[in-house]
C-alpha cells in the first residue's frame, strides 16, 4: 500500500513542479536510521524521486509551512490537514500558497513500542510488508503486526481522511482509528486533585527543556514564546520542578481549543515523555463544553477566542 502511495506522491510532485504550479513539494524522505523518516522539501523533479510515504512519517508537516513566502505542495493526512486549516484560520498560512495533496492516514508507528518489543536490542532495519513490520538487527529478525505498535493518538484518531485537499492521493478510507477518544482522558478524570498533581509530576520528571515538543507543534509559532520572555520572566530557565511544570501546563493551555491531537509533540520528544497526558484532557473538555473540534472548517473561530452569550459557565460559577 505504501509503495503505491509513494509512487503517486512522486508522480504528482513531478507534475506540479514541471507545470510550475508550485515552487516545492513538502513531504518525507527515507531516514538515515530506522523508523524515523525525515520531512523533506523537493524543489526539482529529480528531488521528487526522494519523496516517500510510510508508517514513520510522524511529524506534522503543517509546521514547516509557517513563514514561507513561496507556493508549497504538502502531503497531508487527516490531522495535518486539520492543522493547515487551523493555521489558515489564524492567518499564519495563506490558502492560496498551499496545494494540499490529501491522503488517508494509515496510522503511524511509534518507534519506542517497536524498540520495546525487541527488548531494546539495536535495530538496524525495518521493512514494511503489508500489515507487518519486519524488524532486523545484528542477529535477529522479528515480524510485528503494525496495528500493535501504532502511536497512541493514532488508535483514537477521529479524522484519518483529509478535511481539505486540492488533490487526493489514494482513496479515502475509514474515518476513525477505532479507539474511543473519550477514554484517553478518562484515567485523569478518576483521580483526585492531589493524585492528578502526582501523575503530572511523574509524567514530566524526565523533561530536559529541549523544547522539541513546542517546536514540532504547528500551533507554537509565536516569535517570542512565553518561556523566552524576561520582562517579566514568567517561567524560570532552570531544571527546578516548578519551572519545568509551568512550561508544560502553560503550553497545554495555549493550545486549548486549537490542538488536533496530531501527536507530533510526543513523537518529537527525545525522552519519550507522554506529552498528550495534558492535551488529551483539554481536548475533551473543549469538545464536551463547546462542541468544537479544531481545524475542521476554514473560517471557524476557536471557542477560547470568541465570546458567545450562551457559553458554558459551570467551570467558573459554582
Amino acid at each position, binding site marked *: 500500500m505504501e509503495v503505491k502511495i509513494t509512487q503517486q506522491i512522486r508522480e504528482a510532485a513531478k507534475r506540479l513542479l514541471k507545470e510550475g504550479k508550485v515552487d516545492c513539494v513538502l513531504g518525507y524522505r527515507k531516514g538515515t*536510521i530506522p523508523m524515523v523518516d525525515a520531512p523533506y522539501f523537493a524543489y526539482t523533479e529529480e528531488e521528487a524521486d526522494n519523496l516517500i510515504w510510510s508508517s514513520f512519517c510522524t511529524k506534522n508537516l503543517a509546521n514547516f509551512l509557517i513563514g514561507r513566502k513561496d507556493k508549497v505542495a504538502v502531503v497531508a493526512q487527516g490531522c495535518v490537514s486539520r492543522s493547515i486549516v487551523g493555521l489558515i484560520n489564524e492567518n499564519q498560512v495563506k490558502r492560496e500558497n498551499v496545494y494540499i495533496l490529501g491522503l488517508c492516514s494509515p496510522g503511524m508507528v511509534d518507534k519506542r513500542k517497536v524498540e520495546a518489543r525487541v527488548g531494546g536490542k539495536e535495530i538496524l532495519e525495518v521493512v514494511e510488508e503489508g500489515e507487518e513490520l519486519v524488524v532486523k538487527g545484528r542477529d535477529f529478525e522479528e515480524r510485528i503486526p503494525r496495528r500493535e505498535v501504532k502511536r497512541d493518538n493514532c488508535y483514537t484518531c477521529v479524522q484519518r481522511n483529509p478535511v481539505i485537499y486540492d488533490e487526493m492521493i489514494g482513496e479515502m478510507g475509514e474515518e476513525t482509528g477505532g479507539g474511543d477518544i473519550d477514554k484517553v482522558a478518562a484515567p485523569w478524570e478518576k483521580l483526585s486533585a492531589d493524585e492528578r498533581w502526582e501523575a503530572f509530576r511523574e509524567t514530566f520528571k524526565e523533561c530536559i527543556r*529541549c523544547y522539541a515538543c513546542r517546536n514540532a507543534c504547528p500551533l507554537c509559532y509565536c516569535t517570542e514564546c512565553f518561556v523566552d520572555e524576561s520582562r517579566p520572566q514568567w517561567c524560570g530557565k532552570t531544571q527546578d520542578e516548578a519551572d519545568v511544570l509551568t512550561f508544560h501546563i502553560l503550553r497545554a493551555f495555549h493550545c486549548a481549543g486549537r490542538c488536533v491531537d496530531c501527536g507530533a509533540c510526543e513523537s518529537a520528544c527525545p525522552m519519550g515523555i507522554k506529552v498528550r497526558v495534558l492535551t488529551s484532557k483539554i481536548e475533551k473538555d473543549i469538545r464536551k463544553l463547546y462542541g468544537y473540534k479544531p481545524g475542521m472548517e476554514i473560517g471557524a473561530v476557536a471557542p477560547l477566542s470568541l465570546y458567545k452569550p450562551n457559553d458554558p459557565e459551570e467551570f467558573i460559577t459554582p
Partner: protein
Amino acid sequence: MGEKILTKDKLDEFIKGLTSEYSVYGPTVSGGEARWSRIEDAGKLSFDFSNTSLSPKSFFFPQTECMLEFKNDPRDKEGLIMKEVPPLDERRVIVNMRPCDARAFKILDRIFYRDDDARDVYWLDKREKTIIIGLACNNPCSTCFCTSVGSGPFDEGGVDILCVDLGEKLVLRPVSERGDALVKGLEDASAEDLSQVSALKEKAEGAIENKIEMDNILSREVLEVYELPLWDRIHETCLNCGACTFYCPTCHCFDIQDETQGDYGRRVRNWDTCMSWLFTQHASGHNPRGTKKDRVRQRFMHKFKYIPFKLEGIIGCVGCGRCIKVCPVNIDVREVVKQMNE
C-alpha cells in the same frame, strides 16, 4: 603501567571496596534504556548497553548549577554580596563510561580551562574529584563514527583506566597514575588476556562502517565553508529545538541568570543551546544569528571548523551518534559533514 585482571565474580567486591572511599556511579538499564545512577555494588551495573541515553556530561557540567548565592536585601549588611557555594563534597568514580564520552570531556577541558586566566572553577573542581573507568566498546553501534574524529572504541584519551570485557573477566589497563592506584592490588593480566584485548580492539575498529572525511573542511578557509550552498537547504526542516545539543557530550554552551525569591538570591548557570534564537539575541534587539540558517550552520561550523581551527586540529565531535538517534527530523550529522566536505 601494567594491565590487571578482575574476574566478574570478584567485581562486586571491587565496587564495594571503592564505595568506602568514593561515591560510585555507573550505567544501569531499565525499560531498554541505559541511564547513569549511583551504585553501591555491581548488582545492576551494566556491561551490555550501547551507550547511555543522555551523556555523562552532567557529572561535570550539570544542567542547572548554582554558582553563587546572596541575600536579596540591600538593607542587610551582607546583602547583595555574592558568596561562593561550597565545592563538590565527594570524590567520585564513574564506571563504564564509553571512550567517546571520556574523550569528549578531555576536549572540553581545553575549552573550560583555556589557560590560567580563564579557568572554569566549577568544571575543574568536578573533573579533579572524579576518576573515570572507561569501558571499551566490543560492539560499536551502527551510528558510531568515533574512528573518523580522533576517538575509537578502545580510545584511552580521557580515562584513568580502560576496562575491556572479555566475558568472564575484565582486563583493566591503568592509563593515569590515579587509575593505577585503584587497581594496584589486582592480579596481573596474562599475555593471553592481552592478546584477546588486541583481537577485540581490531574487530571493534573494523566494525565501524561509518567514515566521515574532513580533509577539505580542515584545509579550506573558514569563509569558504561558511558560504557553501548546503546551508540553504539543511536548515529547512530543522526544528531548532535543543535535543542534539543537550544529548551531545561536547556541547557546552550555557546561560547565566540571577534568580531571587523573597530574600534569597542565587546566580545559576543552565545549559543553553545555539539552536535557540534567544541565545544570541542582543539587548539592543540585534541578533547576529537571527535566521534558522545561521543557527543550524553555526552548530556544524563550530564542531567541525572553528574548534579544530582554534585547538590545533582537535575536532569538536567524538562520533557518539546520539544526535543522529535523537533528532526528531533526522538531520544526520554524517550527511551534513559529507556535504561540507564536498
